[in-house]
């Protein structure tokens, strides 16, 4: 079809009678203008990426002129607000990691189970009702989840764990996990659905029961897609901002205790932008350095998930 118009024009040049007066419309100035305009629209997406990279790198370079990379990666204290400033990224990384691990513990088993149920067990009627409901869960704004974590989940957990602080990693992590359940579920379900029926039928023919077919044939066959869904969902958890800003606290520290207040990279970025930090100071620039780390981390995970999907596509 793409060659079609070119072909017609060539015929015309070769002296075939011109049946349509607008035979050259596809090469006309109006058509060209439209093509250029549409191309510029596509270029906006490329410029977005370049813009993000330019701003993050530009301000980070200014930051690393004042704080050495060795301190950034070697120090274990993050105290930009104190008189004695330390800029070691580890407490923020550890906070982000803790939230992500808790979210993974919630979202991976529940999301995968939901994907298996919806794709393998649910009758059509139930599926038509379940899928939109899960999409509803995905449509809840993150600030609403943050409210939920702070005013519902934390008091609920405090009844069981009275020593828990008001701002803590556990309830924020659990709610981040709930937030990414629909993502794990829907991406994993796509992967499970892509498994050819013949594989399952072969297993049934050998006398396997349903759960054996599902757990030992269908799920392993879809494993690459499932792994990709985990990575994408966890990258979302790493970048999640409002839930952790509202519920996890603003205390950057290296700890393994999920009941304490911590700070994630995203929450630090918000904290700096909310304060009246003057432009050009090292604290202001640290926002961009942390943003750069966050960007590299999530970009790496997204690329990895993409690779997994492409590499293991249709290799049953």
């Amino acid at each position, binding site marked *: 079809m793409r060659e079609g118009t070119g072909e017609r024009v060539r015929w015309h040049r070769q002296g075939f009678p011109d049946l349509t007066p607008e035979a050259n419309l596809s090469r006309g100035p109006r058509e060209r203008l439209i093509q250029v305009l549409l191309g510029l629209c596509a270029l*906006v997406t490329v410029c977005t990426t370049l813009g993000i990279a330019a701003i993050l790198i530009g301000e980070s370079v200014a930051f690393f002129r004042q704080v050495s990379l060795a301190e950034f990666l070697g120090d274990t204290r993050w105290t930009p607000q104190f008189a004695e400033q330390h800029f070691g990224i580890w407490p923020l990384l550890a906070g982000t990691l803790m939230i992500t691990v808790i979210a993974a513990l919630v979202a991976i088993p529940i999301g995968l189970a939901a994907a298996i149920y919806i794709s393998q067990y649910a009758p059509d009627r139930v599926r038509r009702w379940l899928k939109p409901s899960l999409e509803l869960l995905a449509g809840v704004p993150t600030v*609403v989840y943050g409210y939920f974590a702070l005013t519902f989940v934390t008091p609920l957990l405090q009844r069981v764990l009275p020593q828990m602080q008001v701002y803590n990693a556990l309830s924020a992590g659990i709610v981040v996990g709930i937030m990414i359940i629909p993502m794990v579920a829907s991406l994993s379900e796509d992967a499970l659905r892509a498994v050819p029926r013949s594989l399952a039928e072969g297993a049934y023919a050998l006398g396997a029961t349903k759960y054996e077919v599902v757990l030992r044939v269908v799920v392993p066959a879809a494993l690459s897609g499932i792994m990709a869904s985990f990575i994408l969902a966890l990258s979302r958890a790493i970048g999640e901002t409002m839930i952790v800003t509202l519920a996890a606290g603003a205390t950057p520290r290296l700890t393994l205790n999920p009941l304490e207040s911590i700070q994630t990279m995203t929450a630090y970025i918000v904290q700096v932008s909310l304060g009246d930090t003057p432009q050009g100071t090292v604290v202001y620039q640290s926002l961009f350095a942390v943003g750069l780390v966050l960007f590299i981390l999530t970009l790496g995970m*997204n690329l990895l998930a993409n690779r997994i999907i492409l590499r293991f596509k249709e290799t049953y």
Partner: protein
Amino acid sequence: MTEVQQAVVARFDLRLERRRRLGQILAVILFLATVFGLLVLTALLVEVIREGTPWLDWQFLTSYPSRKPEAAGIKSAIVGSFWLMVLTAMFAVPVGVGAAIYLEEYAPRGWFLRLIQLNIANLAGIPSVIYGILGLGLFVRFFALGRSLLAGALTMSLLVLPIIVISTQEALRAVPQGIRESAYALGATRWQVVSSHLLPIAAPGILTGIILALSRAVGETAPLVMIGALTFVAFLPANLLDPFTVLPIQIFNWTARPQEDFRALAAAAIIVLMVFLFLMNLSAILLRNYYERHRPH
């Protein structure tokens, strides 16, 4: 039975009973995990409605924010959210649909197209707070738009652009190839094919994507916090360069305060936001159904 036969039977004990029971247990566990999300959603809604309903009245909807909870309202936030959504649609829809048309119908297949596709997939996965940093650096500082409605809408447009591009591409891909071929065979130019055939046929899918993208824009908080949308705006924005606030920012601010009354105000504002988002999603579904019944072809 001979000894050998007994041994064979013992060896091939299918334990069918046990395996079936295991399967049933697994099915129940899977079902419970699936409805867990719905239970949480119910708990969330019940909690918000219980807390917020007493504060939700006409005075709340038509007042400006205030230091006194009983006098506070969300007028400026509702108006700000409305304008942000309209402006975001004005910027993001033409560019997003245009980009998708270019990628699907015009761009030569090759490594460059693959690179752009990969880039769009990655853009969709970048945390929203990073878009906020982009908005802060590019629109607020570099283009000196300040903490304005325009800067907020441009930032949001970039954020939702990948969603619109991806859904429009999917809608265009779903149009049967025969439609293109017959239109070209009749001598239509590329743009004639796109504007009079592909877009009308793909419209329901494109519209659904646009509405989903806009409801994302209405619910986002972090990017607007980054570009400095204010939390205390006691006036309505009169032009594009005025400061503004939106519902999620107001909710964030009230939730972050320790006083019980402000938390309840946050719940009331959440009800308004969720009702609005629900109506948007409902309209997306209705639009899609309408177009499916009244297909142009």
